């Protein structure tokens, strides 16, 4: 459903929905604000992490890779034996955990961006084609979607890492495999109902070709749903990336990623808990914030998706 086709409210001046209105809902005098509260805290956390990722070289106090073995396994600054030089302590190679955390945000967000573009894009295309064309194409594509749901994508991700070698490309392909099916299923459902609408019939009567209808009439109307799906899946991607890194199938060391940091700290849990536990807190905070933000965005843009 496009912005302009939402059922207009009964207010005298129905406010046009703009991006700004999303963040700051209009208050109509005498009415309660109709929408859920804006999740400021999650937005703040997401912003901090995005800023960390973008300006990593400026913000990180040390190199995330260079080793200073003299300073290895120092606890965070607030603990006994901690040094002011390393706010969150150091790992077994004397690398600053804060710096690695900041650079790790880069990897997480980059993978999320690429995988959501690739996997989400494929899912979007398949969903539109399956929903609009229908018939045999639809049933074949939906069988594929069912098959993708049956198999844990992690198995293929591990297989890819072993056969193609670890790296950003492999990781993005693997995570896209995890995503496309759920996108395709939801988008198809949306397209099925759009196809019945008058403006599509009109376009067909005017002689628009099927590709043209899909691109110029269907696509803009499913973009809202697509955006909501993208937001709701950022958390899925971050967890998947961390899990694959943890299992030795992510981006290879020494590039700092949050999952790899946890994996490296695992063996040291008895004497240096901060190495493994701090990156996990970062992941949890990030995923929690993104999910809360996504829930709110869904309620604002497309409440029907709530059943998912």
């Amino acid at each position, binding site marked *: 459903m496009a912005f302009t086709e939402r059922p207009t409210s009964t207010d005298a001046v129905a406010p046009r929905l703009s991006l700004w209105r999303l963040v700051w809902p209009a208050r109509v005098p005498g009415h309660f604000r109709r929408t859920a509260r804006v999740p400021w805290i999650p937005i703040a956390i997401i912003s901090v992490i995005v800023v960390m990722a973008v300006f990593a070289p400026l913000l990180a106090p040390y190199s995330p890779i260079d080793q200073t073995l003299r300073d290895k396994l120092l606890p965070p600054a607030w603990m006994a034996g901690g040094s002011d030089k390393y706010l969150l302590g150091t790992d077994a190679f004397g690398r600053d955990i804060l710096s690695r955390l900041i650079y790790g945000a880069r990897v997480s967000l980059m993978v999320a961006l690429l995988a959501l573009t690739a996997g989400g894009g494929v899912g979007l295309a398949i969903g539109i084609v399956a929903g609009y064309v229908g018939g045999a194409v639809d049933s074949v594509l939906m069988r594929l979607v069912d098959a993708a749901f049956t198999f844990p994508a992690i198995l293929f991700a591990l297989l890819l890492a072993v056969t193609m070698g670890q790296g950003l490309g492999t990781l993005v392909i693997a995570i896209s495999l995890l995503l496309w099916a759920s996108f395709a299923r939801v988008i198809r459902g949306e397209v099925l109902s759009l196809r019945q609408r008058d403006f599509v019939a009109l376009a067909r009567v005017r002689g628009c070709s099927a590709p043209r209808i899909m691109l110029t009439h269907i696509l803009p109307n499913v973009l809202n749903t697509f955006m909501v799906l993208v937001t709701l899946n950022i958390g899925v991607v971050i967890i998947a990336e961390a899990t694959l890194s943890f299992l030795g199938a992510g981006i290879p060391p020494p590039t700092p990623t949050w999952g790899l940091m946890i994996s490296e700290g695992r063996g040291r849990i008895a004497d240096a808990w901060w190495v*493994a536990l701090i990156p*996990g807190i970062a992941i949890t905070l990030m995923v929690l914030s993104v999910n809360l933000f996504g829930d709110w965005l869904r309620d604002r843009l497309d409440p029907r998706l709530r059943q998912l």
Partner: protein
Amino acid sequence: MKRYIARRLMQGAILLCMVATIVFFLGRLTGNPVDLMLPEDATPEDRAALTQTLGLDGPILDQFAIFVGKAVHGDLGMSIRMKQPAVEAFFDRLPNTLSLIPWAILLGMMLGIPLGVVAALHRGSFLDRAAGTVAVLGIAMPSFWLGILLIFVFSVELGWLPSGRMGGPAHYVLPVFTLATFLVAGFMRITRSAMLEVMESEFVKLARIKGLSEAVVIWKHCLRNALIPVLTLWGVFVGNLITGAIVTETVFAWPGIGRLTYEAVIYRDFPLLQAVIILKSILILSINLGVDILYAYVDPRIRVT
């Protein structure tokens, strides 16, 4: 009913062929499969022998035929690291995983279903929101990290429970809890939404009119019907459990098939990984088939669609 089962079996067979094909071609994708199949210090004679048995000097379709022929006879290659047939390694480890999973499912249901019922009964209340928060947090925490956190708290700091490996009942506590977190949120959300739907229905009103106690209405009439959707999502849960077992067994050094998968990855043991993936696929497909048949038996409407 017979037609339904036959169709399901066909679908399962097609899927299995797809998996085998993907595994086969991915193994051939990167140059010489001999490099993937043999350890780095293999002698030229070994390499020549393997090239011969895999038919690598022939066309790729012949190679595929050889691969399928061997696979049908249960030969999926020798594990590089364990020096034993990969299929054998899988079945050696399978019982250890099977001893873990029922407890995890039980715990997941015991936590998830009552939470879902309570959340549905007090919809929108503090309890509902608290249950929702638990679910959201459960999804946001990477489970391998949760496992490490549990080890830190209960093994390192408190010293109450062992941190890994198989052993007596105490060894089960942390892995079962970690594995169950993969299921709790799912069980809770489905139960909650199914309960909300069932509580509106006519037969529940009738049960109330009959004067049955609220407890009987909720826990017997409502919950029994709300559990049907839980069954439909079984396939998703099986997938979660497979993923969960890999992560949990890795964290707790549990010698099951999940840990075997991890070892195959970090030691780059391609024959083993290939066997693990194909056998796990068979496992998943059989479970799904069984559940589908059971479901069609419970709910006759399914057979028609």
